[in-house]
Structures are given as structure tokens and as C-alpha cells.
């Protein structure tokens, strides 16, 4: 039996009190007793405190980021801290360091430059009790900043006191790697290879592959860059970077950052004081979008450079992988993360905003249920859905989702906008618990029958389908006019779906075409000239048909698993939109 099952409420409460520094003497005694007598209590306590340490260290990262946002750089802040401390064992900074310090102090109208700091200050600038609050904020990036200082200032190589007249350090035989940028923030970031540290240096030609989340860099020329995973870049110099894959936003508001240059495989993008986004697809297509100000884009081929074009605010250029095409377009800021704040990066929020901007007729997020079991339509008061039987709400990484285990969600009222529609689309996330034969979304004729004909149905095939073996483990999108219990036009995803994996599904009826997108990619397409039937229907989620009494029956195919973010449109969704919907959620690694 797992340790987790033995977690007692008392132990949790006591550990919580200790975490909150609210432990009374009696509680301390009781906790000590549990820890002494029970090994599983110690294991629980140890993990509890490791989690606490991690959460607390995150708070310092945040504080460091806020501090980072000040006008002074990390180095400047650290120097200020160092110079405010007084301690024994002075060492003498070399003239270069003193000059840096002096210039910063002049800038901030601080006290005259001191050439002396202590060994402890020089490394960590800290005493155990001094300036705790400020230093706690700086602690997370302090260590990284030390390296920056040493490299930038060519600091003395001794910790012991040095005489001022000691001979200068011999010149290094090889130049030290140049620090050209700093990682100033990251959110949910995972890196391939060695992960850079917030507040830490980024070196010239250091390959950086962000596999998940977001990261913000500040180049030495003060240009700031936000990376969205997956993204691969190389800082080339204090004012230049190369991106070979993924998305980035350049923010060049400081005067010194003008001229910041981004090399892509097929173009050079030069900032002219602005905010812009660059996207390099896996196929090599390059897009440059200007949100503010202006950039210059120069196509690059093996034969040389093409003619530079200017892109102004609101504009974009698409460069084909073979550079044969440089096409103007409108800037699409929604495809780029332009800040590291919660609202900028929360994938669930961004996904919801994107869906709403696409104006579906109904949109069920399943974030909460009404007291009567109703599910709100995010697009307005009409078409509220209701939960039947065992459907419930469950927390996921994208907020909440609907959990189905025999129950279903139903919209009683016919969605009139779809009646007779030439175009419609259904988009949602699904995570089946297992391989199963089940209905995900159904427009079922509103008739009292044991088996209602369906107008549209999205289904999952079971492991072995005795009747239609080709449907085994397949996702299917069927359109039927006239409505029927079988037949119609079906699209099947060629690849088998996986249990316990999230899948983003978009079924589209676009006039005579039917299209099925899975995880942002076109999975199947076919022709069908018929529009949506104009008979009344009920929309069901998580089931196909139900008895006239509303109970599942032998034809119901109830779904077991999670469904989320169900949006139904009275128009078609384009390939780009289907891809964007998927990508918005995958920004933080939520792809299946």
C-alpha cells in the first residue's frame, strides 16, 4: 500500500503549522513524536518540506525578476548591495571594477565610490542578519550575478586581502566566453541540455533550446526577447541573435537596443525601435510581425542578400523556406506571447480568449457547474447545457474539464444557427481513459426513440470492432443528412488514438468539404455536398443516444474520460485556425 494512503490529517496539519511558523509547543512535541516513532511520517515530512523549499524558492525567483525590472541591471544592484555592506577583511577592487562602480554611483547619485569591499561582500555581499529583506529578494539571482560581475569586471582572482599595488593579473591565454545576455525570467520552462538560471549569464554562441514554457532574455544592449517553446536560438552578440526554430518576441524600447538583429535561416530582421515577433516554422518558413514601430527584413539566400523591405506597425512578411516568396501580411499579435504576466501566458486563458474571438455559437469550458447542474455557455445566455447522471467537473492543467463515467451533458434546445447550415465546426479537447467505443459529441434528432438518428457524431472506436474493423482505435467524424443511425459521410483519423492522452479535435463542414483536424494537423478530408439537416436536434456531449426517459441504453456508447473546451461554430474553421487553437494550448506543454 502506498505511503500516500497513510497520510494522516494530523500529520498534514502539523506540517502545515510548521511551514507557516505557527507550530505551538504542544504541536512541536506531537510532531516530534510522530517523526521519531514512524518512518513513514518522516518520509512524508521530508517531502513536504522539499516541496515547501521549492515553492519558497519560486517566490524568490519572482522577487528577483521584479527587482530585475528596475533601471539598474543585476550588476548594478549587486554592486550597490556590496557597497552598502561593511565588513572586515577588505580587498581592493581593480581600477576597472572601481570605474564601473563609480559610473553606476554617479548615475544614481549615490555616495562617492569606495574602492574597498570585503571578501564576503565581494562574493555574496551578505551577512547573516544584515538587510535580510532586500537580500532575500536578490538571493535567487545573486549567485548567477556573481559570475557576471567577475567576468565583466575582470575581478581579482583571490579572496584573501590583496595589496593595492600587486601586479596585474596575467592576461588569459584564451578570451573568456563573452556574456551577451541574461536570462531574466522564465515560466514553466524546460530546456534541452543544461538549463540556464534566472539572473544567470548567457554566453556568445551558447545554443539554447527551450522545449517547454516561456523565457525572457535581456541582451547587453537592453533588447529584451521572449521565447515561446519549442524554440531554438543562439545569442550571437550583445545585439544579435539567431533563431532556427520557434517563436520569439523582440522588445526594443531602450535607445541602446535599436538595431537589434535577429537572423533566421532565410532572413535578417533588424529592429528600428519597436516590438516585433518572429516565427520560424519546422519547415523553414519565416514570419516577421510588427506590433509597434518598424523593422527591416532582408531575405537571405545562398546567392546573397535580397532587397531589404520595411515592415511597419500592424504589418508582417512571410518568407517561404526557399526564399522564392516574400509576401506581405497582417501582423497577428495573438500568436505571440508579449509578456510574462499571468494573463499573457496562462494557456487556458489564452485559449479561451482565442476561442471567444473566433465567435462560436456555444462554448462550454466546464470550469464550474450551476447548482442545478447547468453548464454555462461562455458566449451568452442561450444554449446552456445540463449535466445528467455521472458527469462531473475535474481539475486539469487547463483549468477544469468535464469528467464522464456513464453520464453526459446535453443542450436541450436546438442550436438554431446550425439548422440547415452549409458550414459548421466543432472543436474540443478529449482524453479517453481507455480505448473504447464511445460517442464524444452528437447532434441527435429530437425524437422519442430508443435510438435517435444523428445529424453529426464524433466517435471513438474500440480496440477490436467486430462490425467495422477499420474503425478500431480510430477517431471518426460523421455527417448525416438525412439524419440516420448509420451511414452518412465519415472521416476517420488514420492513426490510432491513445488512452490517457489529450487530443485536440476539430471537425469542420465547409460547404461541400468535410475536414478533420487532430492536434492541429489535417487528419482526414472528404466531399459531402449536403448541408446540416434542418430538423430539431439535441446536442449531447459524452454520449450518443438516450432513452425517451433520458437514461442511457444499449445504443448510447457512453464515453469514459475527460472532455474540455467544447466550442461549436456556425462557420468553418480554417487550417490555420485549427493549428492555432491547438498551439495556444500547447504553449506550456499541454499537448498530448
Amino acid at each position, binding site marked *: 500500500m502506498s505511503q500516500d494512503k497513510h497520510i494522516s490529517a494530523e500529520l498534514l496539519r502539523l506540517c*502545515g503549522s510548521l511551514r507557516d511558523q505557527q507550530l505551538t509547543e504542544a504541536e512541536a512535541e506531537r510532531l*516530534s513524536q510522530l517523526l521519531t516513532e514512524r518512518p513513514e511520517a518522516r518520509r512524508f515530512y521530508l517531502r513536504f518540506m522539499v516541496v515547501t523549499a521549492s515553492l519558497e524558492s519560486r517566490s524568490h525567483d519572482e522577487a528577483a525578476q521584479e527587482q530585475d525590472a528596475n533601471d539598474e541591471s543585476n550588476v548594478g544592484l549587486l554592486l550597490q548591495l556590496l557597497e552598502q555592506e561593511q565588513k572586515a577583511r577588505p580587498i581592493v577592487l581593480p581600477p576597472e571594477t572601481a570605474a564601473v562602480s563609480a559610473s553606476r554611483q554617479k548615475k544614481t547619485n549615490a555616495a562617492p565610490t569606495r574602492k574597498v569591499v570585503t571578501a564576503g561582500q565581494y562574493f555574496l555581499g551578505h551577512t547573516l542578519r544584515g538587510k535580510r529583506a532586500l537580500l532575500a529578494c536578490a538571493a535567487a539571482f545573486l549567485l548567477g550575478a556573481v559570475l557576471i560581475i567577475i567576468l565583466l569586471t575582470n575581478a581579482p582572482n583571490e579572496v584573501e586581502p590583496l595589496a593595492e599595488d600587486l601586479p596585474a593579473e596575467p592576461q588569459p591565454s584564451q578570451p573568456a566566453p563573452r556574456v551577451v545576455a541574461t536570462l531574466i525570467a522564465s515560466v*514553466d520552462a524546460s530546456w534541452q541540455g543544461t538549463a540556464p538560471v534566472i539572473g544567470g549569464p548567457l554566453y556568445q554562441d551558447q545554443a539554447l533550446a527551450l522545449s517547454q514554457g516561456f523565457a525572457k532574455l535581456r541582451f547587453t544592449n537592453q533588447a529584451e526577447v521572449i521565447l515561446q517553446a519549442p524554440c531554438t536560438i543562439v545569442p550571437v552578440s550583445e545585439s544579435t541573435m539567431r533563431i532556427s526554430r520557434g517563436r520569439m518576441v523582440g522588445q526594443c524600447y531602450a535607445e541602446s537596443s535599436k538595431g537589434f538583429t535577429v537572423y533566421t535561416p532565410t532572413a535578417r530582421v533588424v529592429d528600428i525601435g519597436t516590438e516585433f515577433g518572429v516565427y520560424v516554422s519546422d519547415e523553414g518558413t519565416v514570419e516577421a510581425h510588427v506590433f509597434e514601430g518598424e523593422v527591416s527584413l532582408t531575405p537571405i539566400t545562398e546567392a546573397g542578400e535580397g532587397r531589404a523591405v520595411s515592415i511597419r506597425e500592424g504589418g508582417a512578411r512571410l518568407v517561404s523556406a526557399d526564399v522564392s516568396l516574400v509576401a506581405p501580411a497582417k501582423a497577428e499579435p495573438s500568436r505571440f506571447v508579449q509578456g510574462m504576466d499571468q494573463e499573457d501566458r496562462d494557456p487556458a486563458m489564452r485559449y479561451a480568449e482565442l476561442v471567444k474571438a473566433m465567435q462560436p455559437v456555444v462554448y462550454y469550458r466546464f470550469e464550474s457547474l450551476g447548482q442545478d447542474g447547468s453548464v454555462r455557455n461562455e458566449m451568452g445566455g442561450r444554449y446552456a447545457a445540463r449535466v445528467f447522471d455521472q458527469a462531473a467537473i475535474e481539475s486539469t492543467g487547463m483549468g477544469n474539464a468535464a469528467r464522464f463515467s456513464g453520464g453526459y451533458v446535453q443542450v436541450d434546445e436546438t442550436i438554431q444557427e446550425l439548422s440547415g447550415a452549409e458550414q459548421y465546426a466543432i472543436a474540443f479537447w478529449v482524453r479517453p481513459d481507455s480505448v473504447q467505443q464511445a460517442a464524444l459529441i452528437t447532434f441527435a434528432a429530437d425524437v422519442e426513440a430508443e435510438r435517435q438518428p444523428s445529424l453529426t457524431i464524433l466517435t471513438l472506436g474500440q480496440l477490436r470492432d467486430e462490425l467495422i474493423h477499420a474503425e478500431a482505435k480510430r477517431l471518426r467524424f460523421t455527417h448525416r443528412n438525412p439524419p440516420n443511425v448509420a451511414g452518412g459521410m465519415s472521416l476517420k483519423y488514420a492513426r490510432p488514438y491513445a488512452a490517457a492522452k489529450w487530443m485536440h479535435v476539430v471537425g469542420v463542414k465547409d460547404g461541400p468539404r468535410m475536414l478533420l483536424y487532430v492536434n492541429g494537423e489535417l487528419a482526414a478530408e472528404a466531399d459531402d455536398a449536403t448541408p446540416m439537416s434542418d430538423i430539431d436536434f439535441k446536442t449531447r456531449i459524452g454520449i450518443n443516444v438516450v432513452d425517451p426517459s433520458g437514461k442511457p441504453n444499449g445504443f448510447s456508447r457512453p464515453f469514459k474520460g475527460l472532455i474540455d473546451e467544447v466550442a461549436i461554430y456556425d462557420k468553418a474553421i480554417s487550417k490555420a485556425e485549427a493549428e492555432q487553437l491547438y498551439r495556444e494550448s500547447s504553449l506550456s506543454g499541454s499537448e498530448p
Partner: protein
Amino acid sequence: MALRDQQTTDFVGRMMAVQPRLRAYARIMIYNPSDVNDLLQEVATIGWQKYEQYDASRSFDAWIMGIARNCVFEYMRDQGKRACPLTSEAIELLESEAVDTSTSASDIEQALDICLRKLSAKDHRLVRTRFEQSETNRGVSKLLGLSEATVSRTLNRIYAQLLLCIKQQERGMGAKL
């Protein structure tokens, strides 16, 4: 690169890599979270001063952990019950296991990243408020308009959820994220 510069780069790189482990160990042993930061910096300072004595053929993590343990012992001697309100017997048992447990701190951190994203928006907000905006439950209660008791209970429930999720992550059980 000058020898000492190279040493600096090496030392800082190694210290960054071992930070989660050091922090976890220190937090297990020390009651007051702000004292943890002080202690970690003390460890770094001593480590840097003694770095030339470090034998590169041996584990840096073990070497710096030795320094960290000495710092913790010294701190406990100085601070007595203020350092940790548990009995000496409990502390001794915890200390011997904390060194091992801290080796998995990085893995737990990674799993925690995933598990935090699985929290409901409301729970996530509470955690953020507690650890990023206010360091006390009282501060959180004021910011969110909840009673302190509610904050504490909710936080404990979230911890239980996170610990379970971390365990599942460690067992390789995937989820939506």
C-alpha cells in the same frame, strides 16, 4: 581563461546545479525560511573560500553538502530551539534522512512544475499569493478576503494534492500536461 576565472565559472556552475538540493536540505532542518537564504549564502561563501581545497576527482555535491551540514549544525547550536522547534531526537533522525531525500529535490521540483499546473485556477491563485506575494497566511487572508484558518486548511489540502501528484509523476503516470 585565467585559472581563477575558470575556477569561478566551475564553482558557480556547480553551485547552481546543487542549489535545489542545498535548499531542500536546509529547509528541512530550519524553521524560519528567511534563515534558509542566509544559510545558503553562508554555505556558498565558505565553499568559495575553500574551493581550492576541493578534490575534483570527488563529488562536488557531496563536498558542498558536507559544508552545508556543518553550517546547519553550527546554526542550530547558535539558535537552539529557534532554529527548529522539534526535539533533538527527531532532528537527528530527520537530518540523517534529509541528506538522501535532498538528492531527489530536482526531480521533485520538476514534478511540482507539472503538478502546479494541474491545480484549479482558484487553488493556483492561493499558492501564488502565499508564496509570491505574501509570506504568511495572514497576508494571504487579507489579500484574498479569507480567514487565516481557511487559508491554512486550503493550503494543506493543496499540499496533499501536490504530494500525491508528485508521487504519480515520479511513477511516470502522465496526465493532461
